[in-house]
Structures are given as structure tokens and as C-alpha cells.
């Protein structure tokens, strides 16, 4: 195929318009992906809803019982219907979103922070410390997250806090590997060498020169990881090992809904949709961020 024309057009399209900073460059590429922009907007709305949930939820998620409408489908009074105990499903999903997002963010933040520090130190100093960290993350990495999480819950007992601990633990090795890889490359970069030659301390080099260089891949990974973490946390609650009733956690709500699936499927459908859309938004946003931050894609 004679395929030289697009290359020329691309070169023209890539001509600078004004000053190009890494940030404007990122934004330019991100903006071109309507799906990712939509996903970002959706995530912003989700976070806002989660923060405002206690004030905007039409009913009390745990203690309001509408005994006249048990198991009723969507109506004007209850937009998403009522569950078998008479609780408003919309309110429970809103408050549940607060829980799911909080467990997701918290566990990825903790796992990401610990993993990043371990990865930075392992990649920078190498030697025995590197070998220990990498061997341990190999072992942890080899396990499926849910199995590791079950182990943690088996030791610590079933609760939401333990779910956060469990999900954090299985995020650590992935971040440690990612950051270690980047650090190994960056510490041989000329600008890091330059910093070292003017006498910058290890601490300065790590925090001011290497860490910023690896931030973009960390951000992409955090976003991708959020979806997985939310699913894992919901799975644990679904298995009865996370949030305990009557807490309106999405996975726990689905577990409750199993008994009445036949007579009232709406009790299960709406929490399922909530998890699906939330995780989908994070995954699409992660894809978009990756495409916008990956320098390799500009050449392709």
C-alpha cells in the first residue's frame, strides 16, 4: 500500500501552536478523546454524588422502611424501587457509592504510596534491598488479589476496614514493580547524572528528579487500579466478608438481593449497574490518560 500521505499530514498537525508545556501537551491529546473526556466528567459527578450523598439521598439508607411498598419497582416516590425490607434503593446506592469510592481511593492510595516508596528505593539503591523487595512482590504478585484479600480477612476478620487493608496489600507489588522499573531507567538519565554531579543528595534526586519523572505512569496506574479495587472490595462484601448488613455497600446489596432475584430483579439490577458504570468510567479514563501520556503513541 502507498501510505506516505498520512505521515505528512500528521507532521503538519503536530506543528506547535504557542508554547508547548508537558501539561498543555497532555491536555491537547486528552481532549481529542471524547470517550475519555466523558468518563472524566462521569467520575467528577460520581465523586460529587458520593460526597453529597447524605444530604441528597431522598431517604435514610439504613433506617427508613416503607412497609407499604416492599419489593416495589421504580416509582415516583422511589425512583429505583424498594428492596424486600422496604428500604429506598436509590438512597442506598448513593450512600453505597460513598463507601465503594472511599474504599477504592483509600486502598489504592495506601497501596500506591507504599509501593511507590518501595519501588523508588529498590530501583535507586538496587543490591540486597532490591532483591528482597522484588522477591516479596513476586510472591505477592503471583496471587490473585481476591485470594490474598480472603487471607487477610481470614486473619483479621470480616469488616470494611480489613477489606481496605486487604486491597491495599495487593496493590503494593504492582506499584513497586512499576516505579522500580522507571527508577532504574531514570537514574541513568543525563539530567539525574547532572544533578548528582553538582552534589544533590540522594533524597533530593529521588524526590525532585526521579519521582516527577515517574508520576505520569503512576497516575495512569492509579486510575486503572481503582476499577479493580472497587470490584475486589465489592466481591468481598458479596461473599459476606466485607461490609456487614445493613451497611448499603454495593456488593453486599447484591448479596442481599440474591434471595429475591426471581420476584424482584430490580433490587439486584440497580446496584449491578452502579458498580459496572463506576468501574467502566475509571477504566475508560485510565485508557484515555494512558493514550495521552504515552509518548510512544505519538509516533505510531
Amino acid at each position, binding site marked *: 500500500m502507498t501510505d506516505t500521505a498520512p505521515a505528512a499530514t500528521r507532521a503538519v498537525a503536530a506543528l506547535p501552536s504557542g508554547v508547548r508545556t508537558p501539561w498543555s501537551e497532555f491536555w491537547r491529546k486528552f481532549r481529542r478523546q471524547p470517550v475519555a473526556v466523558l468518563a472524566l466528567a462521569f467520575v467528577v459527578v460520581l465523586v460529587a454524588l458520593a460526597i453529597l450523598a447524605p444530604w441528597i439521598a431522598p431517604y435514610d439508607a439504613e433506617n427508613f422502611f416503607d412497609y407499604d411498598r416492599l419489593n416495589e419497582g421504580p416509582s415516583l416516590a422511589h425512583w429505583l424501587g424498594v428492596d424486600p425490607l422496604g428500604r429506598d434503593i436509590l438512597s442506598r446506592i448513593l450512600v453505597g457509592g460513598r463507601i465503594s469510592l472511599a474504599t477504592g481511593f483509600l486502598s489504592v492510595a495506601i497501596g500506591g504510596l507504599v509501593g511507590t516508596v518501595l519501588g523508588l528505593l529498590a530501583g535507586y539503591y538496587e543490591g540486597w534491598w532490591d532483591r528482597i523487595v522484588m522477591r516479596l512482590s513476586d510472591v505477592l504478585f503471583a496471587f490473585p488479589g481476591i485470594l490474598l484479600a480472603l487471607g487477610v480477612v*481470614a486473619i483479621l476478620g470480616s469488616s470494611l476496614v480489613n477489606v481496605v487493608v486487604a486491597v491495599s496489600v495487593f496493590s503494593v507489588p504492582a506499584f513497586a514493580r512499576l516505579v522500580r522499573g522507571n527508577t532504574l531507567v531514570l537514574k541513568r538519565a543525563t539530567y539525574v547524572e547532572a544533578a548528582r554531579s553538582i552534589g544533590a543528595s540522594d533524597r533530593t534526586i529521588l524526590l525532585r528528579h526521579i519521582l516527577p519523572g515517574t508520576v505520569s505512569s503512576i497516575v495512569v496506574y492509579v486510575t486503572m487500579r481503582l476499577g479493580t479495587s472497587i470490584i475486589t472490595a465489592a466481591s468481598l462484601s458479596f461473599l459476606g466478608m466485607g461490609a456487614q448488613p445493613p451497611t448499603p455497600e454495593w456488593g453486599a446489596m447484591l448479596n442481599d438481593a440474591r434471595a429475591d432475584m426471581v420476584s424482584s430483579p430490580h433490587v439486584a439490577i440497580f446496584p449491578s449497574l452502579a458498580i459496572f458504570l463506576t468501574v467502566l468510567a475509571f477504566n475508560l479514563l485510565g485508557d484515555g490518560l494512558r493514550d495521552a501520556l504515552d509518548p510512544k503513541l505519538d509516533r505510531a
Partner: protein
Amino acid sequence: MLTFFLKRLLGLLPTLAIVAVLVFLFVHMLPGDPARLAAGQDADQQTVELVRAELGLDRPLPVQFGRYVLNLGQGDLGTSIRTRRPVAAEIGERFLPTLLLTLTSMAWAVAFGLVIGIVSAVYRNEWPDRLGMTLAVSGISFPAFALGMLLMQIFSVGLGWLPTVGAGSWKHYILPSLTLGAAVAAVMARFTRASFVEVLGEDFVRTARAKGLTERVVIAKHALRNALIPVVTMMGLQFGFLLGGSIVVEAVFNWPGLGRLLVDSVNQRDYPVIQALVLLFSLEFILINLVVDVLYGLINPTIRYK
């Protein structure tokens, strides 16, 4: 090749040792007294001490560890607290259903994943690609338990075509394996597409086209083989995911496998069973990783290590 294999095998020993120690320590990390746990809630102090001596929990830790390894070597995994049966027997009868479920899921996940991935790469940025990738991103975003409940609601309850729970006939395998395989199929599709897109841009593909080969031959003979190398690795790694996923899917479909046994054991604090299962799952993982490594070396001789 043999040295490569032996090297990989030796490399597993430290990992195995760490896993064994962790699994052994597991019981000692449990909150509360394992002897009391084994003796039961209502047992008096004397009974608890008897059980402690019987289980060897009164000995020093290193001695206990030695005995643990020795027992493992003889295939003795202890006795289930819940059923009072040997753990090995409990696991034995649950092993096959989980293995079959995992294999079925893998088979169709690979089939769907490869086809969707290749079609998407060939029709890059056209509607088959968009449809395929939309399906794939939905697949990784839909939690297995929700998908399982949805499928059960439609095909078992609504249409009445398939059984709901249990593992009696081949019909029982359809919904659980679809549920379990969905996420893997999605990951495979995304991965295959990426790998294919990269290979389609290589010089040798251009050469093949320049020779005047038909697009079908270029894709089937030249691109496919090269694009599959990373896909095979991914397939191996996804086996691990299936093992983890089976825990959730077995709970949804009440599948008589290892996953449900693990959940039941965690709920009832049946620690000898948990201990054995965690060890078994880890072993499976380590073995899978070894097989992937070796396969990788077989397919791609350039990385048959220095």
C-alpha cells in the same frame, strides 16, 4: 533448553520457601487461640490444653514448622475442624469441578478473545474494532458476581434453558464458565489487538504485502505467529486470575469446588482447610508461572536466557 528449565526450577525454591513459611505462620497470625478454636467454644481449660498438646501447638515454633513440613511431605494436611475429615479428602473431591470449570472458561475465553482481538486489529478504528473494544472494556468492568446473577436471571429463571446451580451435567458448565471467562476474554481481546497492531506495522509484514500476498495470507501466516508470542504469556498469567475468579463465581452458582470450600472455611474459621487451600493455590500459581516461562522460551528462542 534443559539448563534453562532447571535454572527456572531452582529459581522457584526461594519463592516456595517464603510461601511455606507464610502459610505455616498463618495459623499463628489468627486472632485468638487456635487450640481453643479447635476444641470448640464450650470446651473447658483442660480440654483446650489437651487439644493443644494433640495438635503440637505447645512445642517451640521451629519444631512445629519441621513437623509441618514433614507432614506435608507425607501428604498429611491435617483434619478439618468443620467436618472432622482429613483435609486432603475434602480438597480431593472438590478439585476436579474447579479444574474443569477453569479449563472450560479458559477455552472459550481464548477463542473469543483471540477472534475479537484479531478482528479489531485488522479493522482498526472501524466499526468492528469499536464494537469489539467496547465489549472488551465492558467485560473488564462488569463484576463477575453481577454478571453471573444476570445470566442466571435471563437464561435459567427467565427462559428456563439452563439449570441454575450445581455441577451435574454439561449444561451446568455453560453459565459459570461464561461468567468466569468473560473478564479473561476481555483482557485477551485487548492484549491480542495491541500485539497485532504492533506486528502489522513491522517491516516483514510490509515485505509480505509487497510480494503480492493476499491480506488473508499476510495475517494468517506472517502476522499471527509473531503476534501470538506475548499473547501466550498473557494466557498463562490469566490462569491465575481464573483461579481467583472461581472463588466468586462458585459462590454465585453454588459450585461444589475449591473456591466455595475456601469461602466456607473462611466463614467458619476452619483453619486447617484454609491453610491447605492457600498452599495449594500458591503451588498452582508457581507452577503456572513456570510453565509460562518455559513456553515463552520455546516459542521465542531469542529469549532463551543468556
